[in-house]
């Protein structure tokens, strides 16, 4: 059944209620998760949460970042369930998987430089953190450069249908992680201090993840995708969802007392704005080549896209190595290793975009 839409929205091609609802709910749930117990300004952050999972399963040894975040499990399983119900579950893959692994890796390296993925960047901005402005500019610049290459024909290759089992692997991994969260086997670590020890109750986090995963599977919500579509084809449909997400998050932040406008006294931030710009430039550039932001990769992996599954594994590898190789920034600022990794990553993206023309 088609829902009636106001005439204003009819003027914007492709816009539907699902993206409007997704945007608003995404904004509100992210803020409410902080109220429920998640770290400040970190209602949802793919890079932080992946770092928590990587630490918990023993891939890095930072004792402050070890917790299997149920939100991530929820995103994947929500997308998986809804795609099965809506017959959208179509396992496919084979489009430059190794390159996608590296690009997934680089999106997290860029995010670790800024301390947050594109989604968290918007939450930080919505909570009044003005240090996020440099990162927003960097993300837009990165997407813009990526789109320039897309216009010139840069492309990672076609996806082909694959054996159905391929598409089930990442959702099954999510189920396995859920089992670990519930049963807490001895080989799973859990932070007793630091951000890894600060979390919303399990079932609230999981429910939030499932709702958002399902909704955004239908609406195709994506931070990078919305900017890309707007720059590439002046398509505002996804961008409206993004703007509504920011507006909803600002309103929710104000109502819950989380809004604090300023450059200083902001949780999980640093004042190296140039490096924040460069970090998000890398994330934006790599995400455009990948076809979506880190959040979108999780959703696509949930609906059976094995290329996004490989990118997700790259993100997990990066989430471990940003700690083991000291690439991640802290409140003291970026590290030397992180700066080198971001610059190297940007060079890689340029070379890849230049050499992957059709």
């Amino acid at each position, binding site marked *: 059944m088609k829902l009636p839409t106001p005439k204003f929205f009819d003027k914007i091609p492709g816009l539907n209620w699902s993206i409007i609802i997704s945007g608003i709910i995404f904004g509100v749930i992210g803020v409410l998760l902080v109220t429920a117990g998640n770290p400040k300004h970190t209602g949802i952050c793919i890079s932080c949460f992946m770092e928590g999972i990587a630490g918990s399963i023993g891939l890095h040894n930072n004792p402050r970042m070890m917790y299997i975040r149920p939100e991530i499990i929820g995103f994947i399983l929500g997308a998986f369930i809804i795609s099965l119900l809506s017959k959208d579950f179509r396992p496919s893959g084979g489009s430059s998987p190794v390159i996608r692994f590296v690009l997934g890796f680089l999106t997290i390296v860029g995010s670790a430089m800024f301390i947050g993925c594109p989604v968290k960047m918007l939450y930080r901005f919505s909570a009044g953190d003005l240090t996020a402005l440099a990162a927003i500019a960097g993300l837009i610049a990165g997407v813009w450069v990526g789109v320039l290459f897309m216009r010139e024909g840069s492309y990672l290759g076609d996806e082909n249908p694959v054996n159905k089992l391929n598409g089930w692997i990442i959702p099954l991994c999510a189920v396995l992680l859920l089992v670990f969260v519930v049963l807490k086997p001895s080989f799973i670590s859990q932070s007793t201090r630091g*951000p890894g020890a600060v979390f919303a109750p399990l079932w609230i986090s999981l429910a939030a993840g499932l709702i958002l995963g399902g909704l955004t599977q239908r609406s195709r919500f994506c931070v990078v995708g919305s900017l890309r579509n707007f720059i590439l084809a002046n398509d505002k449909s996804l961008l409206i969802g993004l703007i509504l997400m920011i507006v909803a998050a600002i309103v929710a932040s104000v109502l819950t007392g989380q809004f604090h406008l300023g450059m200083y006294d902001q949780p999980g931030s640093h004042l190296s704005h140039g490096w924040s710009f460069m970090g998000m430039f890398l994330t934006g550039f790599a995400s455009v080549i990948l076809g979506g932001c880190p959040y979108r990769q999780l959703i696509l992996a949930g609906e059976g896209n094995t290329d996004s599954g490989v990118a997700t594994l790259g993100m997990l590898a990066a989430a471990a190595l940003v700690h083991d190789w000291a690439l991640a920034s802290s*409140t003291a600022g970026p590290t030397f290793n992180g700066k080198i990794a971001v610059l190297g990553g940007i060079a890689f993206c340029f070379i890849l975009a230049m050499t992957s023309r059709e």
Partner: protein
Amino acid sequence: MLGKLDFLWDSWLDKASCVAVMVIFVTIGVMLYTHQPEVSANTTTDRSSANINNRFILKRSPAVEKALAQTAKLYEAKKYNETIALAGKILQMDKKEPFAYLYLARAYRKQGNLAQGVANYSQAIKLHPDFVDKRSEDFLGRNKKELKPYVDRAITISRRKEFRSKPNYKKILKHIYYLQRRMAGGCE
């Protein structure tokens, strides 16, 4: 001569990208050449130990290693004057020992000398950013309540006109803002 690589010069985008890549490589080269690693740290797999020194193996002389262990004992025994004296001696032996600065920071803070505490902590971060800032609990958690009034007062004072003319104004302000961000929490 470029042969198959001729396509790299097809458009302005390719030319700009080649220049960008070259600039990046030169920048990386300069950064690597000018960078002097402060300490070389190798992580161990020991995650259970409560002793911060056990988690990292730093290239230390046996004398520094012994003195550091002694400093830790003095600090735990709440002998803060002795801790400060011994940490100072360690820095005479090795001025790049981050844990000596860390113990100085802790001891000064316990004595109520927040300015020295933060200054020494900042030095420790500079020398060992991966460990000190992300993994230590200084200026976080339970310390937060104790320190917040001091930091709020420091912020108020820093806004006064007469303070701006002081030497090292910017450096002090940087320390205060850092402390403020760290105490604000968040996920990092």
